[in-house]
Structure formats: C-alpha cells, structure tokens
C-alpha cells in the first residue's frame, strides 16, 4: 500500500505547478487551466485522506469541488469572451485602463 504522505507530495507538486502557471503565464485561458490544476491538487488530497481516514466525506466533497470548478469555468469563459471583444486579446496584462 502506498502511504498517504506520497499522495500529499504529489498533490503539493501539482498545486505548485498550477501556482507557477498562475504567476507566470499571461494568457487568460492558461490561467484558467492552472487554477484547474490547483483545484485538482485539492481533490487528490481529499480522496487520499478520505481513504486514509476511512470515511466518505472527502470523496463526496471532491465531487462538489468538481461541480464548483465547472461553474467557475463557465463564468470565467464568459468574462474572457467579453474581454476579447473589448480588447481584441486574451492577454491578462493588456487591460490597463485603471492604474494604482
């Protein structure tokens, strides 16, 4: 049997890959994919720990997380679409009508 700590290491690696993607990529769609990676890292954790603790709470919560991720992408793609219509680009650094 694989120990739970390996699953945590895997999920932390996936989470960090997602985080690096969020911080370095300028394309809004890549940003969304990176956030999906971070959410799925949480899902790996939840399912591994549900197995470890022997209760189903974590697995059911992972299902909720997937549904939320889908809803979030739906709203996000809508916003990226109007972004493209207004700025002719999906680069997140292009819209700078407001400054600090």
């Amino acid at each position, binding site marked *: 049997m694989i120990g739970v700590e390996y699953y945590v290491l895997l999920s932390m690696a996936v989470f960090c890959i997602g985080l690096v993607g969020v911080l370095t990529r300028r394309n809004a769609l890549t940003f969304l994919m990176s*956030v999906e990676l971070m959410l799925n890292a949480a899902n790996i954790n939840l399912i591994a720990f549900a197995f470890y603790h022997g209760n189903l709470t974590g697995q059911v919560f992972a299902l909720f997380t997937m549904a939320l991720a889908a809803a979030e992408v739906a709203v996000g793609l809508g916003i990226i679409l109007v972004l493209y219509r207004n700025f002719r680009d999906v680069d997140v650094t292009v819209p700078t009508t407001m400054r600090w």
Partner: protein
Amino acid sequence: MAIYELPEWTALGPALILAVTALALFAFDSISPRSTNRQLLAGTAVAGSLTSLGVAVWFTVAGVGTPTADGGNGVIDPTHGFVVDQLALYFMIIVAVVTALIVVASYDYLVDHAYQAEYYSLVILAATGMSLMAAADSLVTILIALELASLPSYALVAILKDNRGSVEAGLKYFLIGSLSSAIFIYGISLVYGATGHLELAAIAEVVSGETEAGSGHDITEMGGLLGLGILMLIGGFAFKTASVPFHFWAPEAYEGAPAPISAFLSSASKAAGFVVLFRVFTEAFPLGEIGAVIGFDWTVAFIVLAIVTMTLGNFAAATQDSVKRMLAYSSIGHAGYALIGLAGLTADGGELVMGAAMMHLLVYGFMNTGAFLFVALAEHWGVGRTFEDYNGLAAQAPVACAAMAVFMFSLAGIPPFGGFFSKYFLFVGALEAATASTAMLVVAAVLVINSALSLYYYSRLVKAIWIEDPPATRDRLAQPTGLYAAIIVAAVMTIVILPGFGPVVDAALDAAGAVVG
C-alpha cells in the same frame, strides 16, 4: 411554549426567501426575455429582500437561536451543515438591508441597460449566497455558499459588457477570486487531512483532543499540516473581505464595476466574509487548544493582518484622485478595523471586541453603501470621477450632498454619527484585550492614527462638494427617485442608529456571545 412551532428548516427563511426571489426573477426572464418591465423586476427584488429582512428581524426579536428558560428555541440546526443562531441572524439582517438599498438604487442606475432581469436575479442570487454564508456551519456548506456569492459577483462586475473598465474589473476580480478559492479549497483539504472532519464542531473536538482524528492518529503529529491549512483558509477569507494579502482586486473591481455593485461588494460581501471568518476561527480552532497543536495562536496572524490592512488601506486612500478609488481603498482600511475583532480574542474572552467589529460592520453597511450610492448618483449625472469633478455639487443637489457629508464624517468616525460609536467600542475592546497581549496596544494605537488620517481624505471630499465653486458649464442635475430614496434611507439610518445604539450593541454582543466563550 409557543402555540405552534414552525418546522426547523424555516429557520433558514431569510436565505430561502432570497433564493425563491432569484428563481422567480429567472423564471420571469425565461418567459419574457429582454423584458424592460423595470417596475416589476425591481419591485420583485425589493419585495424579496425586504421580506428577507423582515423575517430575519422577526427571528432575532423572537429569540430564535437563543436558549430560553423553558428549553425552547435553542440553537437551531435546520439541516446538516447549517446553524441558525443570533450571529447568523445578525449578518442576515446586514445582507438583506444592503441588498434592499442596492436594488432600489439600481432602478434608476439601470435605466437604459439591456439586461435588467439578469442583473436583478444575479444580485439576489449573490445575496442568497451571502445570507447562507452567515448560517454555514461546515466547511462544505461554507465553500458552496461562498462560491454562490462569488460567481454572480464576477458576472455583475463585468455586466457593462461594452465598457472597458467594467470588463477589466470583472477579469481582475475573477482571476484573483478563482486563485484564492483554489487556495481556500486546498486549505480545506489539508484541514480535512489533519482532522478527518469537515463540520466545524467535529474539527474543534479533534483539535482539543476530545475525540481522535478519523484514522486514530494523534492530532499533534499533524500539526504542520493543520497549520498550513489554516493559513490557506485565511488567504481565502482575505480575498472575500478585501484584506491584505488578497486585496489587489478591490480598487480595480470597485472602480470599474457599476457603482451599486461596488456598494454591494464592499458592504454585504465583506460582511458575509467576516461572519464566516468569525465562525470558523472561533468554533473550529478554539484558542488555547490550537496553539498546542500547530505551534502558534492564530490571533498573531490577525494582529499583523489588521495592522497592515488598516495602514495600507488608509494611506493608499489618501493619495487617490478618483472618488470611487478612494472609497475602494477606504473599504480595505475598514476591513482592517473589523479584523481587530479576531485579533483581540483571547482564550477566555473577547466578546466586547468581536461585538464591536460586528457593530462596525452593521454601521458600515449603511454608511459605505450610501457613499457608493452617491457615487452612483454622480455617475448617473455624468459629472466625472475625480475630486475636482465633484466641486460645488451641493449648490445644485443639497439634500444628496448633505447625506454624503453624513456618510463621510461617519466613515471617519466623527462623534455625532454611528461610525464613531462602533470605532469607540473597537478601541475600548482593543484596550481591554491589551491586558492579555501587549501587541493589542499597538493595534489600538494604529487604529487611532489611521482614523485621524482618514479624516483628511474624507473631509477633502466634503470640502470639494460643499465649499469649492461649481464649474460654470455644468447642466441642471436630475433627481432620480430610487437613488435619492436609497441614499436618504442610508443617511437616516446612519444617524438614527445613534439613539438606537443600545439594541444594536445588545444584538452584536449576543451574536458575539454565540460563538465566543
């Protein structure tokens, strides 16, 4: 004993009424898409939010959620994962009040807007999420309620589809929101990993060692995991309450969004974020026991966050030229004031300081909403965005400008208004907590310094409106009924809350007592 008793699920009434209203608006939109029957749409939304407000006030007065001598009306657990107590009802009232004000004001703001039904249903849907956040008692329901509040908000900020500022604001709000919710969910998974539970009460039992974690391991072995999870949860809440370190979105989103939506996000959404923050940290991670498990008390984190948030918000606000952006930064500063409510907690007390934070959020619900609605009125007039553009408005619209002066002085904490009392209680509460930890003395000092600084930029706006001369070329200003009504109600409440402060104090202290001690 009551003659008849309502079934337990009705305790969630205030939130359910909002949900039904949102669905009714959606149904109307699918029957008659592109309808511009503004009276019916706005009327339904106003009726829904006022009913929700009425029910929440009724439940509070009837003592739902407070234990009585005959054993009735204890804390109600209507369905698994929700709890209705005085804390939940108190914040349901704030959410419903702000929603009602916003909806009334939007009636005029949206005159020529193409998507009326969508706008109102999204507002009410977000309000449903905020209302449910107040009652959520498990990390699952907290997350779902939080997303139910967030997702419509992203769409609302970007609802002016052809306005570049609005789209940019929506994008930035969405990007930072999705990032912080990913961090939040990862934090939940770590807390679940350490404790094996998602209900707040069950987590607390594991943390205090009353029960074993699901797998039978010792909780102290998992201290690092739990501590990291708690820090990530703080990140998620910081986004929702617009506090450091996830405050970047606030100035952009508030400036670009339609002004009524800025008011909604900075008042109701912030209050909803704080109620979850209060509930999670007081119920799931009890002070005193948590320190032994994760190696530090979370009050330390909140002391730092409160000081940084207050200072950053107020100093940045002082340097702004745009009125809306100034209000956005001041809203960050006020999040810092409310964070004192958690920073000042101790293992065996802190009701006063937390109750003061709750009072501040209620008063803030009126004065900040009113201030943003005045900006909405200025946008409706088309006078411009900067302080100079507001010059001499009082000569043309004295009533609205008098209301704005009330909001500004109340936000600054000048004695005759509601904002003074909540800040005073915060100060007293912080000093009381200073007997346990000297760091609270610093917090209290920073609170006073920042309040003094904030007087500078608030009075700068009042000076522009009342003392400067108006530009010669400005047209006559219209008097839209809905916006005026909402602004005046907010101003009257900011003043009336003063003689009526006794019940507010009692309600806030009851609400704080529900989770502390």
